């Protein structure tokens, strides 16, 4: 696999993670499904994982960058698994609306597993690490767009989380944005 193909596949992966985060935003804003603290931490997990993929795009593919992505995904998966286990016993309720029969935290766990498996598959090909070439000009727009989307989503999450939780910790079941609540 050439460095260019590896960067292209990494860009597709980063775009996938960006899509997951954008869908979470749509669910939050359009359907007013406000994220709980663990839901926010799962978003953080996607950024921790996507960070390694972004490094692959900027600096070229390296095993350490895939390691960054895998560690981030495992951390995110642990958080998602905790939330699944909170609600796994019948009668313990759930959080948020299901999408295609599964709750968002279950989808998040599946997505984290996909990231780990995807990185493991990418690590199988050593040829991408043999020579770090600068990104070819015709390929530049797509990976850079994926990177820019990821950066914009990170900044959007900063504002969203501050609006939802203020400067402190988030309530367990947020009903409204703390920043926009009128004082009693």
């Amino acid at each position: 696999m050439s460095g260019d193909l590896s960067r292209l596949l990494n860009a597709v992966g980063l775009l996938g993670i960006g899509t997951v985060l954008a869908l979470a935003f749509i669910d939050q804003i359009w359907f007013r499904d406000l994220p709980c603290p663990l839901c926010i931490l799962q978003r953080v997990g996607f950024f921790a994982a996507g960070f390694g993929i972004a490094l692959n795009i900027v600096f070229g593919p390296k095993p350490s960058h895939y390691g960054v992505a895998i560690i981030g995904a495992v951390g995110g998966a642990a958080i998602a698994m905790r939330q699944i286990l909170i609600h796994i016993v019948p009668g313990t309720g759930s959080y948020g609306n299901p999408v295609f029969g599964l709750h968002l935290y279950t989808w998040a766990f599946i997505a984290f597993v996909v990231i780990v498996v995807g990185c493991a598959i990418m690590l199988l090909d050593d040829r991408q690490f043999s020579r770090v070439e600068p990104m070819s000009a015709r390929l530049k727009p797509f990976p850079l767009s994926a990177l820019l989307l990821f950066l914009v989503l990170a900044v959007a999450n900063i504002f969203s989380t501050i609006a939802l939780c203020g400067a402190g910790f988030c309530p367990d079941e947020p009903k409204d944005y703390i920043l926009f609540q009128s004082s009693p």
Partner: protein
Amino acid sequence: MMSLPFVLFACGLGAAWMRHRGVAMGFWVFGLVTMLVLFRVHVTEVLSIQL
């Protein structure tokens, strides 16, 4: 407080964009540690999953 890891990852991405790999990795480590600390803070009760 909950937005801190996003801030750290955004700074890290900014550093990567400016091609400072070491700085970017440093922000990632701090972001990850913050994420794990916040996770620990929110794990307040034992799971009741015995059937």
